[in-house]
């Protein structure tokens, strides 16, 4: 089984989740993070509204799903399509990391392996 971890724009979370389910994911987990890739970042005020400072990091959301190896390409494609912002030329659209998962357990039943996904 593999874990697909996507770092996406917060406003794209709903479409990505929908695409994941459509692509056959059995479940997903997501949480808000801050991150930086090639993206420029933003200017923010600090202190009592006085100073403007640069922040390279931006709010993002990590979504991870664990699926059977066979679904890898389908899920990646689904995420890529759903996560892309309109136009698709802007940096900051996110990144997907794939890694290996050796075992899965369903707490409720104690089932192990792919059947527990």
């Amino acid at each position: 089984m593999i874990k697909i971890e996507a770092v996406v724009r917060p406003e794209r979370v709903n479409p990505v989740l929908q695409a994941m389910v459509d692509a056959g994911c059995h479940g997903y987990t997501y949480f808000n993070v801050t991150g930086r890739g090639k993206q420029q970042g933003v200017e923010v005020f600090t202190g009592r509204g006085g100073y403007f400072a640069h922040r390279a990091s931006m709010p993002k959301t990590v979504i991870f799903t664990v699926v059977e190896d066979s679904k890898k390409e389908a899920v990646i494609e689904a995420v890529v399509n759903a996560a892309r912002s309109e136009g698709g030329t802007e940096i900051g659209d996110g990144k997907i990391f794939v890694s290996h998962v050796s075992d899965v357990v369903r707490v409720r039943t104690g089932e192990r392996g792919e059947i527990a996904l």
Partner: protein
Amino acid sequence: MIDSGSVAWILVASALVLFMTPGLAFFYGGLVRGKNVISTIMYSFISMGVVSIIWLLWGYSLAFGTGPEDAVGFNNFIGNFDFLGFRDVSATEGDGIPDMLFAVFQMMFAIITPALITGAFAERFKFTTYLVFLVAWVTLVYAPICHWVWASDGWILGIGSVDFAGGTVVHINAAVAAIAAAYFVGRRRNVERGVEPHNVPFVILGAAILWVGWFGFNAGSGLAADGVAVNAFLVTNMAAAVAAVTWGLISYFHTGHMSAVGVASGAVAGLVAITPAAGNVGPMGSLGVGFGAGALCYVAVHLRHRLRIDDALEVFAVHGIGGIWGSIAVAIFAVGGVGLVDGEANLLWANFRAVVATIGYSLVATTVILLILDRIPGLGLRTGTWEEDIGLDLSQHGERAYVADGAD
């Protein structure tokens, strides 16, 4: 003659009404997504700055400057320039309270009215354009309608309409402007699945401040610490209470849950509806006003979802429907033999005309203002796609509402 007790009460009432605007800011701010909360709060907060200045410089004069009757009856529609900069507005002389205190009390109404509109276009309206909108709208829409209804020579006052504390001037007026603004700015992006309020405690905090502040709004509108104020205070509380419970119970039987945001919305709907009526209905009448407000506004929120207009925080459903119901309800439940319950329909007819006139003028004038602003280079009603997606807090104000430790 000045009465120090009345001065004390109207000073406090003015402070309470001013406090309603940040209350509204939290009410609205809690309802939007976390990336737009500063933006939503600022729409209200900045009104305390901008409208105070307008009102002092020319707004009060346009609204309440009453000159000698002119040939064409121009004075029935708009005030004159006698009180520009509060010139000749006395701090010590007046009828019960000094004239300046009346002007200050009215200033607080002018501040909150445009702030009410902002719930409709929250999460996408450009902040700089909004600043210009504030100036234009208070001058061209609020001041005239205020003059019609409350100035001694206003034409709506003249036809015998009753609007004790602002059902037409404040609520219907703002609600109509709201629906127009929501229409012209267009629907928000990314809200297909509905928007859950990002901070419900803030919504309740805002509702609580509004409820308390409304005592100043309504019980202050008699401009004295007397029996009218006492009655207005009571009926204001009752309408809020009944409407809150009504909305809550309908919601419970309809969905199986009594939402806190719903109960708070119900309270606000009741407060809106009692506003035009607070000086003219008794305790039992206020129960009717509140019940109607809770029920009608609940239904209105549901019907609004069928529209394509994205009135984000349901300004029209609550303030529009609530205000219209209140204007009718006062004509039904009014005491003193002028209400429909006593078989009198004149007030109903007068209030009906007042409502229609307010809706018509506000709709047209607001639309004109919006269309012009949309076409002025450098302004425009709506923020860009990226600005909206990243949130107006960062894109318009350069700030994030909540910053966690370690994560700067």
